[in-house]
């Protein structure tokens, strides 16, 4: 999505693991406040691409900017302020099993803002309240279903009032009702808090219901970049095959 003031810009990003190229010059922009989907077949490196933004993966070449700040080459310590502003919701929710839901949400507040756990818990309770999940506070993650775990993971990511949220396959492994609830949560977060949302997903139903823009990766390159309506109507054989393969889940594609 070309814009005068994009929130995130990936330029000519190259990433290889053990000599195997994953990205060979990916360039794309993410508009501020949008819900931007990154799609593509499994193994194409969608998750890898968003992890570069927060320093969990380091590209071999290229430039990545977050709100105008170059993040390629930053040290681990220099990534902390970036991670405060740009949080990530992992595919498996990754809640800390030994901590209660409240402490899971409080942890990034206590760590990033160097406040006591008591203060962080108070703030965490407010975040859970805003997501209608305050009643889960004392429970351990293992006692929650996948949908609720994802909801808590989103609450943890929102605890620091980030400008951007990266979602790694947020609806994978969820039943359709929980998946649509998660979609609504992503959309509401984007509208209510103005958070830029980057969603890595295979879920065409999610794209259809909440997506503003979609970037489709194929063979290490950006293959399609445009609004969902154009994506679903695309005649490109690779995109078409992807859409058709997923059409059963969408119903009317």
């Amino acid at each position, binding site marked *: 999505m070309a814009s005068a003031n994009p929130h995130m810009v990936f330029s000519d990003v190259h990433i290889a693991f053990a000599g195997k190229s994953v990205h060979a010059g990916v360039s794309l922009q993410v508009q501020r406040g949008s819900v931007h989907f990154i799609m593509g077949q499994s193994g194409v490196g969608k998750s890898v691409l968003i992890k570069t933004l927060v320093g*969990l993966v380091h590209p071999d070449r290229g430039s990545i900017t977050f709100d105008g700040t170059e993040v390629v080459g930053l040290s681990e310590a220099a990534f*902390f302020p970036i*991670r405060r502003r740009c949080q*990530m919701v*992992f595919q498996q929710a*990754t809640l*800390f099993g030994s901590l209660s839901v409240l402490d899971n949400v409080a*942890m*990034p507040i206590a760590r*990033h803002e160097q406040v006591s756990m008591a203060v962080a818990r108070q703030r965490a309770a407010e975040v859970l309240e805003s997501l209608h999940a305050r009643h889960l506070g004392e429970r351990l993650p293992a006692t929650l279903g996948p949908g609720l775990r994802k909801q808590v993971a989103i609450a943890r990511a929102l605890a620091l009032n980030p400008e951007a949220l990266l979602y790694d396959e947020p609806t994978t492994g969820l039943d359709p009702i929980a998946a649509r609830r998660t979609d609504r949560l992503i959309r509401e977060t984007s509208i209510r808090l103005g958070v830029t949302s980057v969603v890595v997903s295979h879920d065409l139903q999610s794209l259809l219901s909440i997506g503003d823009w979609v970037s489709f990766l194929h063979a290490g390159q950006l293959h399609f970049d445009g609004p969902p309506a154009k994506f679903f109507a695309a005649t490109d054989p690779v995109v078409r095959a992807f859409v058709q393969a997923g059409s059963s889940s969408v119903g009317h594609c």
Partner: protein
Amino acid sequence: MVPISASVFFLRPLASLGRWGQWGGRQVQAVLRLGGAVLRNLPHAEPAAIWQQARDLGNRSMFFVVVVMAFVGAIMVVQASMQAQRIVGDLSIIGPGFMQLLVREFAPTIVALMIAARYGAGVAAALGAMQVTEQVDALRLCSAEPISYLVVPRVLGGLTSMPAIVVVGGAVAFVSGGLAGHFGFGIGWTSYFRTGFVVPSDVAIGFCKAAAFGVAVPLVSSWAGLSARGGARGVGQATTRAVIGSSVAVLFLDLVFGAAGYVAQRW
């Protein structure tokens, strides 16, 4: 044809040995790098987390250590008494000799090998599971440096509790050996419970070994866990790597300290 076959016969194992050596060197380098990172993160250590890990290594291994060391002590005294009875007929040196052997060598080494199997495997499984389920990345997103949050407490916990559990294990082995010697061979209590052979350098070497093993086992096990890749299978492999790596590290350090102690005594 014969020279070619012979060269294949000799060179292939040599080449394999070389590759193994290179691989081993890379693993040792990785562990040492982790050790460097632990040193840099020492100021961020949290006392509560260190205490929890010290309890995990010490208290929760206590039953295992006590049971095994009781058997080890009894078996060693029985074997030594049988040999001594047959060759010299004098059993009065069994107690002091066994005490020196325990303090200087066997208590730290055997206890550390047991800790490598029990605690090391647990550390690798826990950190490996965190690694493959992206919890380590989630920690980094929470501004919790994984080394200071996960590895430093384990290393400092090991450093503090390993010497203590070595003392307990050594004492149990000595007492069980005394019981076996007394009831099996008629060794007198006063003859057995003597510390005459133990000199301060034995105690110093034993303590240094225990402290070094207390650092090595959690460090190698944490490295194994954090390098886990690829789901449940990766966690299993990390656990195996932790036990093997920790055990080899313990034996290597034992050799180094033993040799250093010998050189120091002669000098």
